[in-house]
């Protein structure tokens, strides 16, 4: 039986808003990073799904997703490096302690 497109979209929407919720509410920066990855993967799923169902003969969506995954990996490495540096300075990774970057 063919899984309808809407099922995928429901999953990706739940993932996305779970990510948003996590990003806004979690205090730990690693948890925020994971939430960010959730949002990104939700978007990737949408690319693949729309490609698969709406334009089956095209490949742009798949390739876009592949590049997005690659860039996300690099970006995660960067974010973790930043978090490690923050930890070295303030001995924790609580985002509430990072209020220096303001006016």
């Amino acid at each position, binding site marked *: 039986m063919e899984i309808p497109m809407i099922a995928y979209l429901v999953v990706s929407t739940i993932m996305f808003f779970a990510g948003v919720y996590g990003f806004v509410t979690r205090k730990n920066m690693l948890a925020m990073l994971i939430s960010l990855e959730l949002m990104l993967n939700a978007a990737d799923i949408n690319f693949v799904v729309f490609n698969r169902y709406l334009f089956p003969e095209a490949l742009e969506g798949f390739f876009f997703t592949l590049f997005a995954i690659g860039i996300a990996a690099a970006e995660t490495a960067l974010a973790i490096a930043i978090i490690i540096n923050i930890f070295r300075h303030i001995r924790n990774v609580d*985002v*509430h302690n*990072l209020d220096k970057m303001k006016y």
Partner: protein
Amino acid sequence: MEYSVIILLLPLCMFLFLGLVGHKLSERVAGILGTLGLTVTAVLAYVVAFNYFTMPRNAEGVFETLQPVNFEWLRFTEHLHIDLGILLDPISVMMLVVITTVSLMVHIYSMGYMHGEKGFQRYYAFLSLFSFSMLGLVVATNIFQMYIFWELVGVSSYLLIGFYYTKPAAVSASKKAFIVTRFADLGFLIGILILSFFTQTFDFQTLMSNPTSLVTETAGMTFMGCSVAAWAMALIFMGGAGKSAMFPLHIWLPDAMEGPTPVSALIHAATMVVAGVYLVARLFPMYCAVPEVLDLITWVGAITALYAAVVACVQTDIKRVLAFSTISQIAFMMVALGVAFDSDLHAGLGYMASMFHLFTHAMFKALLFLGAGCIIHAVHSNEMSAMGNLHKYMPVTHITFLIACLAIAGIPPFSGFFSKDEILTAAFEKSTLWGVWMTAVAGLTAFYMFRLYYRIFWWSKPDYGHHTPHEAPATMYLPLVFLALVTCVAGFIPFGEFVSVNGEAYHIHLDWSVATTSIIVAVAAIALATWMYFSENSKPKALADKFRALHTAAYHRFYMDELYMWVTHKVIFQHICRPIAWFDRHIVDGTMNMLATVTNGVSYGIRKLQSGYIQWYVWVFIMGALLIAVLAMCF
């Protein structure tokens, strides 16, 4: 004669070389290099002059105008393009000789005079720059090239007047010279633009081939009651009047004496200040097409000659006396050009006389200034009161100075007699008024020059203390001797054979009635000066007391500087510049300030939004995105 381009390039190279690496050289090397460069230039100029004047005349009996070098520099339209090149005709070749001779003498002289001055190398660099610009000016093939070099001589004059840049008087004098001549040059530029707009050319030869083209092109057009052609030529003359210190644009020249004395000899006596005369002579056929402008030139020249001569009679600073005498003598040349037209007996006698006087005047006035430099060098003052009885201490300076004074007073057989006599003859031919006027000014010239001479070399002996004046070194008095020799023989040069208004050989013959009158007037004036100033007495003071008002007014140069100060400060600055400055400060700047203030205030108000909490930003971002989505769905 393609090699004539070296005459221009050599001083330019010398300027660049001395200007860039001069400070690494010793004084002696820099001075000798500069002088050697100019010696070669001078020799080349003599070779050019010799070759040019020994060339066979063409069929009409005139020397052909040559353009050995000419290349197109900027092209605007099909007809309008600026070229750079070299134009050789009798007057430019004559000027080449004058400039290189005087400049060479000044280069040699400066080695002694400027010895030990701070910035000696810079001084020689500027002298080379000036020589280059002045030579470029006289050989210009088109009026725009002339304008470029015209400004260059202005700049080098500015640099040299302000050579002692730590002296406030020198700085303000250099600024004054630059601003006044620049103001006049604005008129010159407008004149050039009108001229080229109607004639469609800058080129001198094209203009000269049809000198009435401007008048025919602008036929019927008038502006403020005068024809456009007259306006154009009068504005061009304004540039010349500024450079040549014609009344009322003369105010910069007396102050320019703040510069080193050899500079005054080169720039402010012999070469740059006659650029205005040269300009009028260069465009003379075009001026003949608008006789009303020639009348203007005559009037301006005559008034300047009289004014400067009267002022020169009472000045006490010897360089100031010479400065006013220069103004007066240049005015003689201007008058000669002004009266040159339609003197039917001798066509264009005034033109030849003007060029002749330019030539002789350059030599004897440079001699006077260099002599004054020797005197200042000896007594360390410009004031007459510090001088007296110097004939005992400085025999060479004394004799050469006397020769120059006799020349400028118009005593035969010195050069000034011949050239001045031609000018007076030309003036008498135009009208008796100008003849009598200029003869009177010539008498005044003889009087103030001999007043200067007696006050310096005779009068009484001031207290020199243990610092007895002594003769200047050889580098300084040799140029004096050379120039004195030139002054003795220059009058016998058959000048009219070389330079005349139409290029044909012109045989000078003295008009003995005019000559006798002028000699009698000059001798009487010299006798008066001798009676008053030969030995110390109270006659000059008594005379000054008797004519107190006139004396005070003349001593203050008839308050021309004060008038300028009043006009600029009280009228222009107060009523024009100040409102404009207010508009700039309050309206233009105010608009910009208001924009900045509003931006600043708004930013200050909303900066609290940037709290530093990342999650708050994300929250706002998401809510904003949702809001936009909702709005997009609703509308």
